[in-house]
């Protein structure tokens, strides 16, 4: 791998990311499966970086999942997105920070559509007005939340308590980065580093001391594929795709996987459990599986946040081995305590996957 | 009564030979099918035996076919075989003349001069006759020596290689008669009982003692003994096998598709004369390892490779040239059947094909089967249909839209069981049609229909034969032009089915048919043959070019053929018109 060549490409795919004052568009999957990641993101922005970010209780799903499952019409999703722009406008903000990669893809696509077909924009304005009496401005800057962390990766590095380095060997950790398909594959110029060699996560990993693993199937879909997951009969197809990725990364012995898309993080994590239970295989050497982190969790760990506050105990693949490698201090007993220190029920152990 | 021990080698050798022969013949005959055995029993006391004896005499001793091919070669074989035969016959006569009885020990006539020094009435005549016969045989031996040095004089371009066993047998054979001459001459020197030859040679043997004389007779006997023992294990076995083969052939035994005892007899009847090597067109493409004589050798030695087995056009030129009359094509096919019997198709899909309903009142007189190859030459197909329409023939086009292959290509490749499935399928269709004549426009189909279909009362006609009939019946009339035509005999039609004359007669009604150097039974293969599975296109083209050279020597206006495959093969190689006989008829129709 020739880094100079990669840098050459990165230099031609740098996008503008707003510096401050964001309207936070939350993600359905993230808030359901990684709620602590949202909390961590807001904490990092507000406490570590001192930025203004507005988390609006009024905003809803973008309906992207429904749209990609062919149950929400395109006009509907455009109107929902327009409503979010209206909320942003009403909050007096111009920069939107989108937590979900699929939402990010939808927003980008819709904005591009409106640019080429202004009459469509007018139609949507009309729809929104008829339905909600709201009006909106087009955001000045649109960024995925990982873009923002990427932008401030060096600031975070300065405040870092830990580095992505194996404490015992001193070697950088081998990190697999997985970029959600909807992040840059449709509009390469809208993603940091483009679609072929995205920089958004590798930038963070390298700034925080880790090494990026480029494995052959890194561009492959995580396997979510919306419809392919939602219908049980199709799930075999979904899990087969994840398997393809895992098989491809296995020889590189990654220490963990990091994803910028909540859906990807969830499927790469949960399907490892499914594959272990269904076929008895894991893709690490010891039978524990490869830990999967969201970039917020990765940033939080680097900044020294309590792993249990970051919600790592809710993952299928347990992260203690990773924490040990980095040398992060944690209280094993606190893993299943609620915020008041009461013991929560301990999950059953899987049949094949070690915990 | 053993007069001298030197007769032992001869006697033991002869006994060994007869025992081995008895066992071999016995095994071969016992392994023939029941029907074939019945045939032998039924024909044993019939004229067939006489015919077989006559042929054995003509071919086994006189070597008539060999004479036809080359005089000197024929004479060499005749002098050895017939001369030796006469020596034995006259040896017995000599004994009879002396003793007045034929009953004597078998070695007495062979070593007569040694045992009999007394004169008897007619002794001089007999001695001179025997000397003359010896000279006759010796002339053959001399020629045989010479042939080894220079075979070209005998019209042989390529010859077979000898195995050690063969060399041993040949060496002993070469010694027998010179030694007999020396032994008799020695005896003549001592006792003066020789003829014109031995007495003359005896002049050089004045120094011999009785010990030397006995020594020479020993040598003579040993060489005979060695030869007899070697004979069943050498190429000379063919002489004895061929006679059995001739008899069985006369008894109406035919070669089956599967390799059997009769096939084995044929394989061992091969004299390795090499005639098949010379007539093979494969040499043109520098392929010189798969001619029939080599294949038969490989069959005897069980080391036939697939490459050699499948690399033969099965044109039949060697078969028609074989002096022994071995069914070389079918023997080769039987090996292909054996080699591929494990993977034959059952064509199950044929059972599921929709059947066209038979309309009773529209029973055709003729059913026309175009075949795969005719479908690739629409010109032929169209012409056949045009002629049939013009002649007002009530016909049905069997494979106009969809048809199964006739099965001949499978047969050529050795896929016998598979071919049977196609044959069954087509046969049923043909018989169902109610037609009385099956018309084909492809000799490849024609061959399999005639040989393997068992269509009962239905007559099978190639279009060249059928169109000639139509002309003779006045159903179509032809206009003769001044065009010169050379007719190429397709292998399957000519050598395969013996149809040489009708196409020529038919063509002569449309133009002038020129004859070529190699035609009818000796005609060359076009090289397109489906018989060969592995011959490359480049080699095919080389062979084709040579064939065309012969065909076009006289610059004909049209090159006519009667096979779609020949036509397709030739058409890519020449500037002049290449036409199927059907197309020529359409052009000449009034």
């Amino acid at each position, binding site marked *: 791998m020739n880094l100079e060549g990669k840098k050459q490409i990165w230099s031609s795919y740098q996008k503008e990311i707003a510096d401050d004052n964001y309207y936070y568009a939350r993600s359905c999957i993230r808030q359901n499966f990684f709620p602590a990641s949202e909390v961590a993101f807001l904490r990092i922005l507000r406490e570590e970086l001192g930025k203004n970010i507005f988390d609006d209780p009024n905003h809803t799903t973008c309906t992207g999942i429904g749209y990609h499952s062919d149950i929400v019409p395109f006009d509907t999703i455009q109107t929902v997105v327009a409503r979010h722009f209206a909320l942003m406008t009403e909050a007096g903000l111009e920069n939107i920070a989108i937590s979900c990669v699929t939402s990010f893809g939808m927003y980008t696509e819709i904005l591009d559509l409106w640019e080429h077909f202004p009459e469509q924009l007018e139609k949507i304005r009309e729809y929104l007005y008829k339905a909600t009496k709201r009006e909106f401005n087009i955001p000045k800057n649109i960024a995925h939340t990982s873009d923002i962390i990427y932008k401030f990766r060096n600031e975070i590095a300065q405040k870092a308590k830990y580095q992505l380095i194996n404490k015992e060997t001193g070697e950088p950790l081998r990190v697999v980065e997985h970029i959600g398909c909807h992040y840059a594959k449709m509009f390469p110029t809208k993603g940091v580093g483009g679609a072929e060699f995205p920089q958004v996560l590798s930038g963070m990993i390298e700034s925080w001391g880790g090494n990026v693993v480029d494995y052959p199937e890194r561009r492959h879909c995580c396997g979510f594929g919306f419809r392919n997951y939602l219908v*049980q*009969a199709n*799930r075999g*197809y979904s899990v087969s795709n994840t398997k393809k990725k895992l098989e491809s990364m296995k020889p590189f012995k990654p220490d963990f996987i990091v994803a910028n898309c909540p859906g990807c993080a969830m499927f790469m994590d949960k399907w490892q459990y499914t594959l272990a239970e269904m*076929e008895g295989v894991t893709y690490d050497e010891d039978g524990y599986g490869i830990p999967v982190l969201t970039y917020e969790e990765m940033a939080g760990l680097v900044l020294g946040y309590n792993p249990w506050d970051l919600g790592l105990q809710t993952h299928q693949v347990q992260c203690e081995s990773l924490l040990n490698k980095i040398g992060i201090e944690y209280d094993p007993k606190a893993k299943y305590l609620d915020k008041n220190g009461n013991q929560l029920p301990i999950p059953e152990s899987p049949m094949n996957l070690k915990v | 009564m053993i007069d001298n021990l030197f007769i032992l080698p001869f006697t033991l050798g002869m006994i060994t030979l007869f025992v081995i022969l008895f066992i071999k013949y016995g095994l071969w005959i016992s392994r023939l099918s029941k029907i074939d055995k019945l045939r032998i029993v039924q024909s044993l006391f019939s004229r067939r035996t006489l015919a077989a004896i006559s042929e054995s005499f003509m071919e086994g001793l006189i070597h008539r076919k060999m004479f036809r091919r080359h005089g000197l070669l024929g004479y060499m074989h005749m002098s050895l075989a017939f001369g030796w035969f006469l020596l034995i016959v006259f040896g017995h006569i000599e004994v009879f003349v002396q003793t007045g009885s034929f009953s004597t020990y078998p070695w007495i006539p062979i070593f007569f001069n040694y045992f009999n020094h007394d004169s008897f009435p007619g002794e001089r005549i007999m001695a001179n006759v025997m000397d003359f016969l010896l000279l006759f045989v010796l002339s053959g031996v001399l020629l045989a020596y010479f042939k080894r040095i220079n075979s070209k004089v005998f019209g042989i371009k390529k010859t077979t290689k000898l195995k050690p066993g063969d060399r041993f047998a040949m060496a002993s054979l070469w010694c027998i008669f010179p030694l007999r001459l020396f032994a008799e001459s020695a005896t003549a020197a001592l006792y003066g009982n020789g003829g014109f030859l031995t007495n003359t040679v005896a002049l050089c043997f004045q120094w011999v003692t009785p010990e030397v004389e006995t020594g020479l007779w020993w040598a003579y006997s040993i060489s005979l003994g060695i030869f007899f023992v070697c004979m069943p294990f050498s190429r000379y076995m063919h002489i004895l096998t061929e006679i059995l083969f001739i008899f069985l052939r006369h008894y109406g035994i035919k070669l089956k598709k599967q390799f059997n005892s009769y096939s084995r007899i044929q394989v061992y009847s091969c004299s390795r004369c090499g005639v098949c090597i010379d007539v093979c067109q494969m040499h043109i493409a520098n392929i010189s390892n798969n001619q029939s004589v080599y294949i038969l050798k490989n069959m005897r030695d069980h080391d036939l490779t*697939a490459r050699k087995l499948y690399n033969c056009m099965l044109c039949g030129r060697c078969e028609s040239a074989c002096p022994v009359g071995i069914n070389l094509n079918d023997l080769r096919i039987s090996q292909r059947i054996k080699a*591929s019997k494990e993977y034959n198709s059952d064509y199950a899909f044929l059972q599921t094909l929709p059947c066209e309903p038979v309309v009773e009142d529209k029973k055709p007189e003729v059913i026309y089967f175009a075949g795969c190859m005719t479908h690739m030459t629409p010109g032929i197909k169209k012409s056949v249909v045009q002629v049939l329409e013009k002649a007002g023939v009530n016909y049905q086009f069997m494979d106009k839209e969809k048809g199964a292959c006739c099965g001949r*290509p499978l047969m050529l490749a050795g896929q016998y069981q598979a071919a049977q499935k196609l044959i069954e399928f087509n046969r049923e269709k043909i018989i169902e049609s109610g037609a009385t004549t099956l018309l084909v426009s492809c000799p490849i189909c024609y061959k399999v229909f005639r040989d393997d279909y068992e269509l009962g009362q239905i007559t099978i006609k190639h279009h060249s034969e059928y169109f000639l009939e139509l002309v003779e019946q006045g159903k179509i009339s032809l206009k003769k032009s001044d065009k010169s035509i050379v007719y190429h005999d397709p292998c399957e039609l000519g050598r395969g089915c013996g149809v040489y004359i009708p196409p020529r007669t038919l063509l002569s009604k449309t133009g002038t048919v020129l004859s070529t150097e190699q035609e009818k039974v000796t005609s060359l293969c076009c090289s397109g043959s489906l018989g060969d599975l592995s011959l*490359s296109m480049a080699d095919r083209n080389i062979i084709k070019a040579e064939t065309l050279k012969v065909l076009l020597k006289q610059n004909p206006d049209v090159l006519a053929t009667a096979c779609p495959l020949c036509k397709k093969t030739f058409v890519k190689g020449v500037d002049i018109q290449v036409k199927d006989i059907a197309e020529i008829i359409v052009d000449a129709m009034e």
Partner: protein
Amino acid sequence: MRNFGFSTTKSRTIDYEKIDNRLIRYVLENEPTFNACLSCGSCTAICSAGNLTSFNIRRLSLQIRLGELEHAHEELDKCMLCGKCLLECPRGINTRNVIMLMKKGLYLIESESKEKNDR
């Protein structure tokens, strides 16, 4: 192992690392002209067996090149060896020999695996 009501599917991807090349190797060794195949499909278009069935030699030869032998036997059994393809092939491939070699090669492979099973 647990059953979740679905299972992973076999990948359709042609993986050149895992191709079973036994049959194609056997055919090419014995009939090198087969190397020159262009997959033009003229053999398939003219095929007598293809006129009666779904037989497709172009597809079959591709499948065999990719080591997919599951349907090969059944497909090969449809060929009638008539030789039209031989006359049609622009690259002069001895198609009939290719078919015969495929049949034989397949027979050898099948009997070899049978032997293994018997043991």
